[in-house]
């Protein structure tokens, strides 16, 4: 389809704003740009259709099954969105006097209280805008804590090899060296390697639990103890909290700081990549270092307060407020039992799907999984020439979003499947049937899988060409196709 720029016609415009009601006063010529930005000039009906056409070429959770591992693509309740559109929230300036924004402060305070309960933490900040941003903030708390104690030799962060790429990248971004520890044969942290890795230069450990293999590390208490005894702190990557919410708490597992993805676990929409929220919770000893400001209760309601040794700000204001609000609406709706129920059914749905596939696909780590599981197509690729990519792309023709591909890195030809609790048994059965059919086709007609997808708006793309000869914006002067 055409770009908006290709649909543009000079002079097409319509008034949105009223005529100027004060004398017109222009800035001096010398301060002005030479030519106007070449923005599209389109009529309203055509703009509306342009974006409807784009929407039709977009697959959201509302369009079909979306088992993207570690992304928790659950249903996004519409009540959340309606509440986030209330003018009593959208029309509030972030620098209003706090006494005129008591509702907003109450939202932040209430969300913090509930999420601290769920995670077993003592305090929380909503400033980080995404999971990776939360990781950055959380590891900064660890850094600030060691610095405040004058412990300058803590130069390393330990990261298991099953971790999300953001973990090692975060550690580097905060000035740490990364020590990778391998996984053991059951998919957990290799304890011997961990004991070997820790020392008086250990700043901390970053761990996702359940991990990206969908495994709850049974040695978790031992892991966090080993790190604490070495003088390090434990960071909980909350990407997979959906499996254990209301059942077990990172705070009880020995973690000192945790980030949550409110856009995963707490049902706020992913928005095609954002906005999300990477709320960070911590134990009392790290509270003085939290980003500023925080919301506190005062005698007439709520007020802002700056933690005494704050690491500063990681963005302006108080985070993605409307996302925090949506998460609060979700928690109020579900309540304690509903949250546990969600986790239980997330785990049940994953196990149900795994069971339905395990006789025709290889499961990387068989047994009971948590909220997600990983298939390895290594053998299939060797024997039939059908890769994880081929299976994923074939799913597109059945109207399903594929699982996360080629991750975690320690599993060859990986497909990581996370159905979430908001999918019905029929949807799971259908997805199982589709994956079984694709598996049968790998035997009968593998070539057809290499050609997939056939029925999507575009087919497989030349990604190498895109990176080798980057075209990153519309070429106004060139010939388009």
């Amino acid at each position, binding site marked *: 389809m055409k770009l908006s720029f290709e649909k543009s016609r000079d002079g097409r*415009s319509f008034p*949105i704003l009223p005529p*100027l009601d*004060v004398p*017109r006063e*222009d800035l001096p010529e010398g301060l002005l740009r*030479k030519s*106007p*930005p*070449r*923005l*599209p000039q*389109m009529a309203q009906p055509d703009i*509306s259709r342009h*974006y409807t056409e784009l929407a039709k070429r977009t*697959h*959201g959770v509302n369009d079909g099954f979306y088992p*993207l591992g570690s992304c928790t693509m659950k249903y996004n309740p519409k009540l959340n969105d309606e509440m986030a559109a*209330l003018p009593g929230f959208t*029309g*509030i*300036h*972030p*620098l209003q*006097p706090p006494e005129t924004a*008591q509702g907003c402060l*109450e939202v932040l305070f209430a969300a913090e209280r509930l999420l601290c309960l769920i995670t077993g933490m003592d305090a929380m900040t909503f400033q980080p805008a*995404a999971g990776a941003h939360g990781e*950055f903030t959380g590891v900064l708390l660890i850094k600030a804590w060691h610095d405040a104690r004058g412990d300058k030799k803590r130069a390393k962060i330990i990261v298991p090899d099953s971790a999300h790429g*953001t973990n090692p*990248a975060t*550690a*580097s971004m905060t000035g740490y060296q990364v020590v990778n520890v391998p996984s053991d044969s059951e998919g957990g942290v290799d304890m011997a390697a961990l004991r070997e890795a820790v020392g008086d230069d250990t700043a901390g450990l970053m761990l996702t639990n359940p991990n990206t293999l969908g495994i709850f590390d049974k040695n*978790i208490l031992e892991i966090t103890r080993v790190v604490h005894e070495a003088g390090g702190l434990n960071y909980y990557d909350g990407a997979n909290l959906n499996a254990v919410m209301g*059942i077990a708490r990172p705070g009880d597992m020995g973690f000192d700081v945790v980030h949550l993805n409110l856009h995963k676990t707490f049902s706020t929409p992913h*928005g*095609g990549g*954002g906005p999300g929220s990477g709320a960070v919770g911590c134990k009392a000893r790290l509270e003085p270092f939290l980003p500023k400001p925080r919301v506190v209760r005062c005698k007439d309601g709520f007020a802002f307060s700056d933690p005494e040794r704050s690491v500063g700000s*990681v*963005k*302006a*204001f108080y985070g*993605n*407020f409307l*996302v925090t609000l949506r998460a609060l*609406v979700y928690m*109020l709706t*579900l309540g*304690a039992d*509903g949250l546990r129920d*969600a986790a239980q059914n997330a785990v*049940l749905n994953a196990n149900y799907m795994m069971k339905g596939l395990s006789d025709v696909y290889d499961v990387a780590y068989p047994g009971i999984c948590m909220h997600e599981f990983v298939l390895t197509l290594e053998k299939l690729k060797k024997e039939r020439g059908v890769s994880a990519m081929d299976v994923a792309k074939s799913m597109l023709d059945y109207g399903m979003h*594929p699982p996360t591909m080629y991750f975690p890195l320690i599993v060859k030809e990986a497909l990581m499947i996370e159905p979430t609790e908001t999918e019905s*048994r029929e949807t799971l059965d259908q997805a199982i049937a589709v994956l079984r059919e694709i598996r049968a086709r790998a035997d009968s007609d593998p070539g057809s899988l290499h050609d997939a997808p056939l029925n999507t708006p575009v*087919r497989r793309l030349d*990604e190498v060409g*895109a990176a080798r000869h980057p*075209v*990153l914006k*519309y070429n106004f002067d060139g010939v388009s196709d």
Partner: protein
Amino acid sequence: MAYYVPSTEAEQKEMLARVGVSSFDDLFAAIPDSLRIKGLDMPEGLSEFEVRGKIEGIARKNVAFKSIFRGAGAYNHYIPALVKQIVSKEEFVTAYTPYQAEISQGVLQSIFEFQTMMCELTGLDVSNASVYDGAAAAAESVGMCRDRKRSVVFVSESVNPAVLDTIKTYCYAANAEVSVVPLKNGVTDADAAASVMDESAACLYVQQPNFYGLIEDAGKLGEIAHSCGARFVMGVNPVASAILKTPAECGADIACGDAQPFGMPMAFGGPYLGFMTASGEMARKLPGRIVGQTKDIDGKRAFVLTLQAREQHIRREKASSNICSNQALCALTASVYLTVLGPDGLRGAAERCASKARYAARRISAIKGFELLYPGEFFHEFVTACPCDASVVEKRLAGRDILGGLPVSGGILWCVTEMNTKEQIDELAGILEEVSR
């Protein structure tokens, strides 16, 4: 209450049996008993009806002011109906990062259009798909300039304090030094910049218009940065960019800012939209997602996430930033906003801001005690003195349903946009006259 879980209890039992366990407890056998909690000490779930009532009640505890004269990093602009409708489309709202390009062309194309628009606004060559907000964009931008030899980040004192604070936090993380260049008459002191910057300088970061609304002599500051071999980074207000000299025309290597004014409500600080553009030479240092054009196997034009070799999921600890998402829905909002306004509409909005701000500045500064603090040209914000404690003025205005300017050192920082009618400005001036008497 099994609120959003479709399976009935009977189905759950059957499914547990199919899995080969007898209860939910069995599914969680890997979790040590000592870690299993009995339950959470929080309220039971509520019906949609009850939650709505509760949340609407909380919203009523806020004051949504009738007229708003406050900016300082969050701006009150008109949001066209088309923008709100389009960005509510569930396909856009409920999708995730477009990893599967074949079924994500809508999001990908919208980001490609966004990248093009940001390049048009700033005059620079390459844009990323957006980052968290303007302050984070500033911090990531200065991060692009640092290397082993050039590690000191110079930031003008005239930038928004929240931006400076965020830059400092990111630099603390990276063990990099931040040096603040002082002000003169409310703008960056160019002589001071020239004298303090040396071969250790990674970049000079200035904000245009600056925190006090004043227009900086960016061209000159850019020359100073470049003359010592440092990069020049400009944080810009995107509405002002419609009419002011572009960062490219001022010699900037990187431009960034917060595009919240392009269709996003103030919403108590977020979600907003950080944008970053750079010269072609720095393209591969840009953090975050970038969308590129390519072809599918049938030769059809298509869009895809590209230049991923820079990113964390490939490079892990060697990545320059850990960022792995963008604010896609906000980038879409900005694109739709700019498409609805078009070049004439955007210029019109910017000119209305400038004219109304001038009218307001004249009215306010004519009142005894509210003189303009700085002599320079401004866009839509300006600082006046205040004859009394600024919080007194703030309260007085609040009593008349007006959110006044932000109290700052030396006075009040006012902001006027196309949303402020002449009537509102006259009413404001009238109340300030009462205060002044």
